[in-house]
């Protein structure tokens, strides 16, 4: 009889080691130099925990476990190999998978334990299932919007918030009732179906540019639901992993919404698109200065300092590799080139950094907003590629503007501003960008990838001549 007890204790000790590795993992990730060690720590912790679990003597049959592990690996490998441009939708999809796992385990646990479920346990189970279900469909919707299989623009209708809030209230109501009467198993499916529907409706009114906040928020929900699962299964390891993931998502959501000067509620329930549509319509066409690739290349070549401001448009045009070539060409001429990264540039936190790193741009050239803003007054040329609202001076100067108060990159303080843009269409927020009408701004109309390629050729040609 001693052997099983020894095994049980060994399992617990291994879980403890895994937990330590799980805490070290994000800690090491904090700096690029130690970051990969963080991944290894996480992998080791995961292997140990899974290995230990397989020793658990309650497991009577390994067939389905083995099949599922293999199947999961087969699905996981391609998901680990997606191109960097697809990382936002992959991340959303992984939130969906995580939430699905949690919701399914929660459901199974309820039916195994009902009716003998304590009130506290039922409360945690409800939280697990509700959060898991809404995160599952919400993340699938987000992934669909990011992959553009679903329309990116917000879909709004009258009474939308009322419908959403009612659904949420009903599911919480059902949960409360079940906590008081855990034996009413007939109500349990409601706690799955209504949050599933809520997850879909919650994401429908959210536009592409709000995705960084929404993905972070869904990340936080996925983490919290996993922590709730840890309470249900009395697994400290799972509680800690869920708490880490939940706080990580929460911190990122706070950073993202601060960077947009908006509250969570505003992102989730604010009809952002509608307000600006009106203000944009009032603006008449105003003259802008334009320049050709040849003229722009001459100015860039003569500059001492250039700051490139990338945005989602760069990712859409797949221009990051051309941008690297431009960076190389300018650096070779002795021009000091840096990149200014706004926290919400792109579709998820840190999106631009990953794309530029993929294009082999050294990470010490990627400068955060707070740091780079003091450098713009000494910058000869600020080159904006596919970014719009994050450069709009109206956020600083115009209290009437819907984005007033949002922290922006002070591109307008550079000596010359160049903006590569397809046309004069307003950005996501639908607001006219004052930057484009400044005397020092040159508009470079064209596709980002093609135009940067042209710039590069001009610079290379001059260099040879």
């Amino acid at each position, binding site marked *: 009889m001693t052997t099983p007890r020894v095994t049980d204790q060994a399992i617990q000790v291994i879980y403890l080691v*895994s937990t330590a590795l799980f*805490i070290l*993992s*994000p800690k090491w*990730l904090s700096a*690029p130099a130690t970051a990969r060690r963080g*991944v290894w720590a996480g992998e080791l912790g995961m292997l140990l*925990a*899974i290995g230990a*679990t*397989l020793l*658990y003597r*309650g497991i009577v*049959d390994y067939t*389905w*476990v083995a*099949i*599922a*592990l293999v*199947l*999961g690996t087969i*699905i*996981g490998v391609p*998901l*680990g*190999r997606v191109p*960097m441009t697809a*990382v936002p939708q992959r*991340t959303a999809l*992984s939130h969906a998978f*995580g939430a*699905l*796992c949690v919701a*399914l385990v929660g459901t*199974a*646990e309820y039916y*195994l334990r009902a009716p003998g479920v*304590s009130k*506290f346990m039922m409360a945690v189970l409800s939280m697990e299932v509700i959060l898991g279900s809404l995160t599952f469909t919400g993340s699938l919707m987000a992934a669909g919007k990011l992959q553009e299989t679903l329309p990116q623009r917000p879909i709004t209708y009258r009474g939308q918030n009322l419908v959403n809030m009612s659904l949420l209230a009903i599911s919480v109501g059902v949960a409360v009732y079940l906590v008081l009467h855990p034996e009413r198993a007939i109500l349990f499916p409601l706690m799955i179906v209504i949050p599933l529907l809520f997850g879909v409706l919650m994401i429908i009114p959210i536009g592409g540019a709000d995705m960084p906040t929404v993905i*972070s928020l869904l990340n936080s929900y996925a*983490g919290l639901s*996993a922590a709730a699962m*840890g309470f249900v*299964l*009395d697994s*400290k390891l799972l*509680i*800690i992993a869920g708490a*880490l*993931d*939940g706080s*990580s998502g929460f911190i*990122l959501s706070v950073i993202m919404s601060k960077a947009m000067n908006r509250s969570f509620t505003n992102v989730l329930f604010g009809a952002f698109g509608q307000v600006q549509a009106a203000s944009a319509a009032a603006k008449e066409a105003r003259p802008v200065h334009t320049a050709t690739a040849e003229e722009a290349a001459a100015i860039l070549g003569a500059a001492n300092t250039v700051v490139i401001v990338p945005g989602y448009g760069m990712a859409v045009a797949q221009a990051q590799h051309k941008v690297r070539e431009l960076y190389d060409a300018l650096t070779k001429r002795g021009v000091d080139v840096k990149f200014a990264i706004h926290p919400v540039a792109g579709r*998820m*936190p840190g999106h631009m*950094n*990953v794309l530029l*790193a993929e294009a*082999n741009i*050294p990470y010490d050239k990627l400068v955060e907003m707070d740091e780079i803003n003091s450098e713009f007054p000494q910058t000869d040329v600020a080159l904006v590629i596919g970014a719009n609202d994050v450069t709009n001076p109206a956020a600083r100067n115009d209290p009437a503007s819907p984005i007033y108060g949002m922290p922006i990159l002070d591109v307008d303080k550079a000596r010359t501003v160049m903006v590569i843009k397809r046309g004069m269409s307003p950005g996501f927020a639908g607001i006219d960008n004052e930057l484009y009408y400044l005397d020092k701004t040159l508009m470079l109309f064209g596709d980002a990838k093609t135009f940067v390629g042209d710039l590069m050729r001009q610079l290379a040609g001059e260099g040879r001549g």
Partner: protein
Amino acid sequence: MTTDLITSLYVFMLAAFIGFEVIRRVSPLLHTPLMSLTNALDAIAVVGAIILAGEHKSRLSTVLGTIAIVAATSNLVGGFMITDRMLKMFKSSKPTKP
């Protein structure tokens, strides 16, 4: 029972504080890999799913547990792979220490 839950609440609270302190320090440069990594770590839920599927307590729990293992495993495999791929790309322009 209640003591267990209270202990769990303490664990959760402490872990949340550690999470805040550790993750606050992560450079914004690495926010995308951070999200992929914490996602992969979150897939530790697979442990609960393995027990559920392996215990065979009911047909429902075995089926749901098996699907849950598939979902979590694909997350952990894909999550670690892509995080490592991303981190490999981050290079400094300064020569690295030998």
